[in-house]
């Protein structure tokens, strides 16, 4: 964080993740935004900038359309799109606006309607009767999915996890299902999660196979949801009430990276280097190290992804992610609880909401308001998302000392 201005979370909210057949994306986003404003004790009249993210609504859930329901104040709106890092990008856009001195308060929103969408990625091979004619950057004469490996997310991320095992000489794939067992177990304490059901290892590995080693419960749950956050400058916060200052959460680092060139990164997306880069910057800027973290929400879009991010976020020594998991560290009673919300596998993954919802989860614990799943005495947390293509957002958050 630049020395010039601190940025804090003043109010934040996430909707229940799950099926919301009676609410459209604008309703969900509005509900989250209204609740975040109320949580911060402010109104739309106080907001000087809005950043909003929604990927699948084709513009129907733009920031403008959300403000048409909650307050058309004429402020600048940035509609942002950064794959699964869209929510974190909205948050970071507001952070930058405040830090640049453009305004002292802003609203970040992420929303998605994803129930029943199914497999994300390519839409299959298209017209089977089309002639073999070279098209596109590879000069392919037909659809490449299933012919040059897989384009679909479960298989792409399966390869990410399997590559990690190969790189570090590990052979036991059971670690992935056991990671999933942890997150499903954690979700039983989260009333806002899409699924709250504990699953045994056997239930997980014997469920429907999607893309080995990922079975269905090891994949992020498609669902509807929204999250929103009101951010405020440090100097403005000083003028606010004791209660607002007590509940405010400091953003000690807000980092966004893209994937730098690495051998093979255009063959299989490299989700590792940009995460490690973002984590390094975040730890440097915040002066907080991985050993200081009381809890972490990381992007477990698939069980195979969670493993590699233990390493990328430096929660363990390089190459030691399996041993880190085996030690029990990322369970909620472990030394570095990871995804106590249930993670994307169980809480759910309404894409654009995720990068704000994971910040909400951390704030909930830092404020001491997480009820049955409260990590006792939590003072520092980290929220991480990856959008394939790739974008990585990392936010380090600290409890107020007021």
């Amino acid at each position, binding site marked *: 964080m630049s020395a010039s201005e601190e940025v804090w979370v003043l109010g934040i909210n996430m909707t229940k993740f799950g099926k919301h057949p009676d609410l459209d994306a604008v309703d969900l986003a509005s509900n989250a935004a209204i609740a975040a404003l109320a949580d911060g004790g402010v109104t739309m009249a106080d907001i000087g900038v809005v950043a909003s993210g929604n990927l699948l609504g084709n513009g129907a859930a733009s920031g403008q359309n959300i403000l048409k329901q909650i307050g058309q104040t004429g402020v600048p709106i940035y509609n942002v799109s950064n794959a699964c890092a869209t929510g974190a990008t909205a948050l970071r856009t507001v952070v930058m606006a405040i830090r640049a001195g453009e305004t002292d308060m802003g609203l970040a929103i992420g929303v998605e309607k994803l129930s029943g969408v199914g497999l994300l990625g390519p839409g*299959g091979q298209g017209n089977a*009767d089309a*002639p073999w004619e*070279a098209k596109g950057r*590879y000069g392919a004469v037909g*659809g*490449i999915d*299933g012919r040059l490996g897989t384009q679909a997310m479960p298989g792409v991320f399966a390869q990410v996890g399997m*590559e990690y095992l190969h790189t570090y000489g590990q052979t036991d794939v059971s670690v992935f299902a056991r990671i999933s067992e942890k997150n499903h177990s954690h979700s039983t304490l989260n009333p806002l999660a899409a699924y709250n059901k504990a699953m045994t290892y056997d239930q997980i590995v014997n469920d*429907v196979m999607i893309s080995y080693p990922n079975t269905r419960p090891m994949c992020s749950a498609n669902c509807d949801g929204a999250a929103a956050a009101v951010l405020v400058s440090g100097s403005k916060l000083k003028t606010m009430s004791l209660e607002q200052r007590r509940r405010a959460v400091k953003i000690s680092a807000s980092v966004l990276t893209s994937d730098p060139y690495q051998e093979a990164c255009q063959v299989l997306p490299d989700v590792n280097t940009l995460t490690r880069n973002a984590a390094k910057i975040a730890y440097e800027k915040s002066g907080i190290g991985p050993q200081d973290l009381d809890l972490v929400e990381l992007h477990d879009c698939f069980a195979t992804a969670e493993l590699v991010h233990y390493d990328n976020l430096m929660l363990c020594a390089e190459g030691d992610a399996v041993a880190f998991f085996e030690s029990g560290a990322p369970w909620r009673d472990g030394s570095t609880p990871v995804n106590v919300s249930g993670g994307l596998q169980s809480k759910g993954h309404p894409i654009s909401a995720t990068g704000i919802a994971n910040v909400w989860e951390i704030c909930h614990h830092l404020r001491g308001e997480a009820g049955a799943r409260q990590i006792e005495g939590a003072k520092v947390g980290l929220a991480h998302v990856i959008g394939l293509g790739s974008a990585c957002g990392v936010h380090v958050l600290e409890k107020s000392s007021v």
Partner: protein
Amino acid sequence: MTNTTAATQVPFVGYLHLNAGDPYLVAHECRACHARFFDRRNLCANCSGAEFDEVRVATHGTLRSFSIVAFAGPGVEVPFVAALVDCEGTTVRGNLINCDPTPDAVHLGMAVRLATYSLGSDKNGVEAINYGFEPDVSKETR
């Protein structure tokens, strides 16, 4: 291969050279930094270099990663093995073929080699030939 069949066959991707039955893959290699790419390039992603050479990629390698895809979009035959193959330092994606798509038959680090197969002919009688990787039995230690 006769001229008649050669005229009605096309490689599935531009970087596959059928080479009259002795197929190989080619990469665009940046003249400045030697980064390799399989797609049409504007500049080098690593160093922004503008000059490329066409180079042959090794036709054998080791399995760097894989997934056995059991669920896919419409028209995609499952199960299949999506593979990432390290061909002497150049990583290539493709399907693992001529191998059971089961965890017992596929192992990280296994030796594989380039192979081709037909994707069938279109209504004009043009046959598409794709590449994959198959277990390299000559490298098996047992």
